[in-house]
């Protein structure tokens, strides 16, 4: 077996940087922590590329790609049977994720050196970024589901810390709390899923769990509960955790608010890496989903399809450019989920699995690019709202070109990378489920429409008079943009069907013209409508909004999901559960304690007069007592 022990460095370097920058960053100039953090991630980036090269191309793989345990160490030992290990598992998806995470993280680090300049807490920002990179890398290389859970919570914490980076802003604080509470709530489902799964299969180890001849899959026909096997239920619970992290409906409400964080954070965490952790989780357990829990896989498919449609509709009406991108992210993650949901295991059946991972990869590149581009725009005009922008193409030429490339990519225009991955997803959906296919097909058109609405509103549209002339971002910010633009263009040509497949065996796949041509056509239609409506300032958007008044209002208010949550929590949970519980606590529990204290105080008040401090009274009592004793002993005994 080739030696992969250097992969340990990919994890340990960001962790060491987190501690170093966090503890000693303030002693140096801010730029030092930026450069140190960036070079550490640069090292991780190079090592990940090396790992990928070695894993995919260098070492022989006659019978497909096998999972390799590069490192495994017992971390917590309860009994001989129950041990929690920490280690590194290398298989096609984890190696691919290593590349995605280190690439995006490295680019975001470079970008942040420029973007976060002159911000307070510069070194704090970089130490949290390192913490996040470490946790996310630990999550993808987890060898067992418990290690994954540990790092899963760690990414949640670092996301919380980075959303709340501007902790003086009340909205940022509220958003970070919301993100943490919603994902924690979902993680409860994940934990229950882990417990049921490991209890039924007696193992935590991924390799044993996903082994097609292993206990999880062969024993799936065992106990049932409400018509579904226990394994299926556990997989549904695990998916709840994944849905929370990946902002699937109805646990998506935290993601748009998470845009309160600095833009590089949105690019790294809330677009490219952490939010796809849910997809990764389902992909990691995919053999069980496919072979032992088909109903759970259907849940994944329908939740993914619904979320992608739902989020795309909302994205069409939002005005905050980062929120448009956030809903677009949700929609694209929905795509990945539905692709997993319609997939089977092994060979060409596993097309959906491959497509999902492919889309995860390309999406990470172009969505990070979109966010970083949006960051450059916000940097230039100091506003998040697209109605305060317009005509920026003259001022920001590099940002304009890279943003256009990203928009074309996400719309799925040949030969950009988004075309290939989206085409595979649509093809997989067409083969398995026509309803989901048509929903996804419609979403493809919507995606093109709202992305170009965004693009035209920022870079074309009305001429806005700015207080001071917007200027192009510094080189340190435009270089990552250009790198990611190149990546978005060319990653589509990576032969994913040979590299990342459900069972590790390569299969043949080709562009299905019957799916590809209509999908490009609907994208062009979407772009065309957006061009007519938004290229020049016209009255059409207003008219459209009026004619579709209700739909527009509902979409603009995000289908009132936030209001529903507020209603459920404030009006129902708080009023009918929390208030009575609080009353019980205040009056019954506290009342008992206060009652005991009151009785004691009252009694002591009654008898404290005996302790008068008057010597002669005490003496009198003493003498009387002695006399009484004498009387008793002499006469009454």
């Amino acid at each position, binding site marked *: 077996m080739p030696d992969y022990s250097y992969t340990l460095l990919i994890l340990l370097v960001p962790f060491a940087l987190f501690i170093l920058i966090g503890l000693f960053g303030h002693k140096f100039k801010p730029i030092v922590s930026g450069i140190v953090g960036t070079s550490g991630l640069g090292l991780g980036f190079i090592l990940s590329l090396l790992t990928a090269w070695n894993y995919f191309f260098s070492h022989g793989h006659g019978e497909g790609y096998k999972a390799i345990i590069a490192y495994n160490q017992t971390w917590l030992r309860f009994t001989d049977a129950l041990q929690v290990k920490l280690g590194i598992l290398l298989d096609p998806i984890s190696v691919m994720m290593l590349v995605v995470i280190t690439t995006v993280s490295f680019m975001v680090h470079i970008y942040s050196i420029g973007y976060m300049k002159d911000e307070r807490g510069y070194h704090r920002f970089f130490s949290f970024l390192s913490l996040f990179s470490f946790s996310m890398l630990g999550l993808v290389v987890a060898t067992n589901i418990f290690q994954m859970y540990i790092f899963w919570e760690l990414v949640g914490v670092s996301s919380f810390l980075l959303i709340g980076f501007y902790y003086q802003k009340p909205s940022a604080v509220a958003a970070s709390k919301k993100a943490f509470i919603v994902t924690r709530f979902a993680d409860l489902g994940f934990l229950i899923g882990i417990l049921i799964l490991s209890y039924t299969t007696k193992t935590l180890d991924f390799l044993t769990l996903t082994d097609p001849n292993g206990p999880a899959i062969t024993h799936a026909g065992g106990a049932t509960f409400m018509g579904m096997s226990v394994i299926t239920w556990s997989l549904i619970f695990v998916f709840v955790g994944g849905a929370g992290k990946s902002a699937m409906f109805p646990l998506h409400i935290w993601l748009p608010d998470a845009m309160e964080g600095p833009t590089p954070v949105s690019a790294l965490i809330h677009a490219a890496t952490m939010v796809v952790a849910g997809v990764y989780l389902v992909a990691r357990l995919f053999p069980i989903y496919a072979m032992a829990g088909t109903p759970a896989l259907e849940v994944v498919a329908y939740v993914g399809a619904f979320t992608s449609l739902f989020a795309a509709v909302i994205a069409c009406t939002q005005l905050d450019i980062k929120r448009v991108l956030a809903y677009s992210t949700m929609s694209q993650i929905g795509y990945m989920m539905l692709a997993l949901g319609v997939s089977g295991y092994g060979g060409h059946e596993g097309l959906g699995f491959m497509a999902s991972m492919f889309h995860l990869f390309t999406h990470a590149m172009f969505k990070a690019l979109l966010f970083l581009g949006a960051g450059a725009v916000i940097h230039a005009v100091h506003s998040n709202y697209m109605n305060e922008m317009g005509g920026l193409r003259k001022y920001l030429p590099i940002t304009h070109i890279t943003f256009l490339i990203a928009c074309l990519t996400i719309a799925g225009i040949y030969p950009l990378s988004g075309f290939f991955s989206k085409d595979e997803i649509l093809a997989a959906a067409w083969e398995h489920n026509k309803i989901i296919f048509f929903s996804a097909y419609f979403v493809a058109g919507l995606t093109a429409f709202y992305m170009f609405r965004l693009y035209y509103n920022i870079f074309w549209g009305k001429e806005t008079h700015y207080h001071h002339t917007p200027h192009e971002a510094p080189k340190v910010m435009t270089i990552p943009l250009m790198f990611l633009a190149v990546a978005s263009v060319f990653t589509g040509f990576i032969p994913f069907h040979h590299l990342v497949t459900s069972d590790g065996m390569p299969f043949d796949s080709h562009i299905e013209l019957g799916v590809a041509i209509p999908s490009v056509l609907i994208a062009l239609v979407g772009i065309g409508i957006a061009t007519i409506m938004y290229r020049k300032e016209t009255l059409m958007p207003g008219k459209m909004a009026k004619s579709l008044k209700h739909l527009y209002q509902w979409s603009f208010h995000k289908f009132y999901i936030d209001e529903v949550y507020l209603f459920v929590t404030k009006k129902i949970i708080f009023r009918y559960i929390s208030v009575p519980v609080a009353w019980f606590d205040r009056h019954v529990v506290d009342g008992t304690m206060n009652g005991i204290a009151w009785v004691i105080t009252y009694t002591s008040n009654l008898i*404290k007069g005996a*302790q008068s401090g008057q010597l002669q009274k005490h003496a009198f009592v003493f003498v009387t007592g002695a006399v009484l004793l004498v009387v008793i002993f002499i006469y009454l005994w």
Partner: protein
Amino acid sequence: MTEGIPLHYFLIISTLMFFIGIYGFLTRKNLITMLMSTELILNSVNINFVAFNRYLFPDKFQGHFFSLIIIAVAAAEAAVAIAIIINIYRRFKSIDVQKVDEMKY
């Protein structure tokens, strides 16, 4: 010398002294008078010791020695008590026992 005086004479005297002492101790407000009352109590005990020794065990001396020890202890106790009283006087500008009630609840 004590021929013809029966024992109960002594016992009556000592009982009277004892209860006069108790009464004085419980009713007098002046700390010095209270100290004197305790001396009365101690001395009534001394009389008892000596009288019983004389009438019950004329050829032994334990009772006498007990009396001597009690006198010595009483002298020491008086020294300590007067020292306490002087300190009380310095602090309270009075030797009224009812004003010394710092130790109440």
